[in-house]
């Protein structure tokens, strides 16, 4: 077996995968990713529409000079970062509990985390609508305990949209962090305790730095998913919170202004790639594997 492993290792990556396989993969990526992206960047398609046709530069100029659209770009990034940070704050303790304290219940905790992912995102979002409705469970309860005099409008605003997004995305953060926490050698923490470090200091100086890799992975996954999400915003935001994905959806389904939609999607892609690069740089600077 050892020989076999060694032989496999010596053959390396190219021994397992023939250049033809790599060519097929590359061809697939070129046809279904690179060419569409280039086409999108060139933005030259003239579509059947009764609306005015404008050059692609018109849309980029509008996106980068009109304060409204600059605000939308800022809101999109702020929302994504905000949701990601909330997911870390909620997800880290859950991941820590899952790995260190759940014991034989860890299977159940993982199931509870993953179970919501098995249902449609629309169903999960509508669940919040029912809970937060003007005559929903939360308002009924608050009225029952005399905490409020008339129903509060929880829905159709940034708060409900953020809650919906966090609910959808927090399992990705927990699973990313938990997988790294599980790989941390417990003897390192024990050594710190033996050397006199308190439980909190051990966490701060040993556990947390070693789990940055998981936080980084979770950050990237959650940020990118939040950055492109629009169903939750559409259903819970009530149009109060406008982001680039929502405006892209409008351009496709209502005004059929595909050129503007293409320009916005290119900007969204650039934001995602830019943030991804910054996050990776930040994580590497902290001494974590990239």
């Amino acid at each position, binding site marked *: 077996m050892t020989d076999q492993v060694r032989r496999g290792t010596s053959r390396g990556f190219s021994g397992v995968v023939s250049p033809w396989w790599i060519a097929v993969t590359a061809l697939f990526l070129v046809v279904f990713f690179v060419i569409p992206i280039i086409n999108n960047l060139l933005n030259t398609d003239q579509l059947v529409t009764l609306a005015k046709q404008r050059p692609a530069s018109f849309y980029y100029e509008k996106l980068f000079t009109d304060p409204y659209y600059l605000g939308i770009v800022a809101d999109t990034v702020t929302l994504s970062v905000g949701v990601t940070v909330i997911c870390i704050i909620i997800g880290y303790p859950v991941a820590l509990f899952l790995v260190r304290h759940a014991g034989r219940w860890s299977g159940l905790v993982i199931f509870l985390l993953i179970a919501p992912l098995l249902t449609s995102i629309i169903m999960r979002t509508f669940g919040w609508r029912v809970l937060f409705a003007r005559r929903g469970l939360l308002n009924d309860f608050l009225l029952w305990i005399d905490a409020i005099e008339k129903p509060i409008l929880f829905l159709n605003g940034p708060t409900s949209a953020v809650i919906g997004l966090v609910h959808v995305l927090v399992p990705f953060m927990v699973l990313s962090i938990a997988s790294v926490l599980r790989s941390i050698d417990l003897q390192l923490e024990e050594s710190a305790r033996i050397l006199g470090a308190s439980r909190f200091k051990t966490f701060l100086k040993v556990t947390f730095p070693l789990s940055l890799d998981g936080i980084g992975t979770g950050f990237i996954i959650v940020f990118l998913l939040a950055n492109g999400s629009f169903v939750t915003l559409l259903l819970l935001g009530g149009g109060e919170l406008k982001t680039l994905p929502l405006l892209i959806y*409008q351009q496709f389904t*209502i005004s059929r*202004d595909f050129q503007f939609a293409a320009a916005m999607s290119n900007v969204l892609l650039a934001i995602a790639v830019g943030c991804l690069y910054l996050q990776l740089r930040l994580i590497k600077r902290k001494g974590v594997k990239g």
Partner: protein
Amino acid sequence: MKFDNHIRRSGPAMLGAAMLAFSVNPVSAEDITVTSFGGIWETAIKDCFASEFEKRTGSKANVLIGSPAQWMSQIEANPDNPPIDVIVTTQSQTMAAGEGGLISRATAKEVPNLADVDPIFIKAVDGWGACFDFGAFILAYNKDTIKNPPKSIKEFVDRTIKGDWMATMPSVSYAIAPDIIWSFADLYGGSADNVDPAFAVFKQLKDSGNMISWSSVTDFLNQMSTGDADIGMYWDGRAYAFIDKGNDWMGVIKPTDKAFMSCVAMNKAKGAPDAAWDYLNIVFEPGPQACFSDHLKYGVTNQKVQYSEEMKNRVTWPKDLRAPNVSTSRKIAQNAADWIERWNKEIGF
């Protein structure tokens, strides 16, 4: 080992062959692909038109769910061999598709039942086939929470601003938002060239804090069911269909100051087979149209259709509705992007 080498060398070819095999369309040459909105629309299209087509021709009519903008893009992507044979479109989209060469112009020669269609529904799409059904944007309300409902759209607006109830209106993300902007402009003394009066009203509604918005037809029903809204603007047919399902707490008001009318056309994609004409002829036939009307509670356009007494009372007829003419529809389509941008900037929901 030989097998391993074999896999490595021939794998890509096998993968390519498999992808090719899966990419071959299994639909036979006689089968057609038709389109429908979701929900009870899909049921009606299948029960009234697709099944009738299959019974008469022996070919299958595959029903594709989606939205007109998506279907138009699919036809545009491959106009010579379109993946869709019969497309459902709104008035302005029908004209855009016709003038852009995506659909064939249907006349009574290709679709004999068009001869019995009320001419206003042929004019409504500038002669690109005809609308096959029409709906009115009425006021639907909760009878338990509103005992004295408004009689007109203007009263609805005034009392919403005053705070008599929580109201809901279609958001700018709903497909016919530009048409609704025009209808408010028309109601408040503006036009397709001057939508300022409409935006002034929307601004007042928004600032009142008594208005939320819905972005899909099911969204409206959820808002009404959960109590998020007491009253709102909605399609008459869908409201009646909802009431008939046992939701008798919902009431319908036909506004005295003319509800907005929208009609839906169905046309054959230019590269589609002639079987699509057969399907369209069924769509405009009195029997299947009556079936469609019975399912969706909308008015239909063939003048020979016999409505039940209940439907006769429910349908709001075109003379009592606010509908854009061809020139206005064209302006709505031309200005849609600018109006939506203005809505985003000034109104926001």
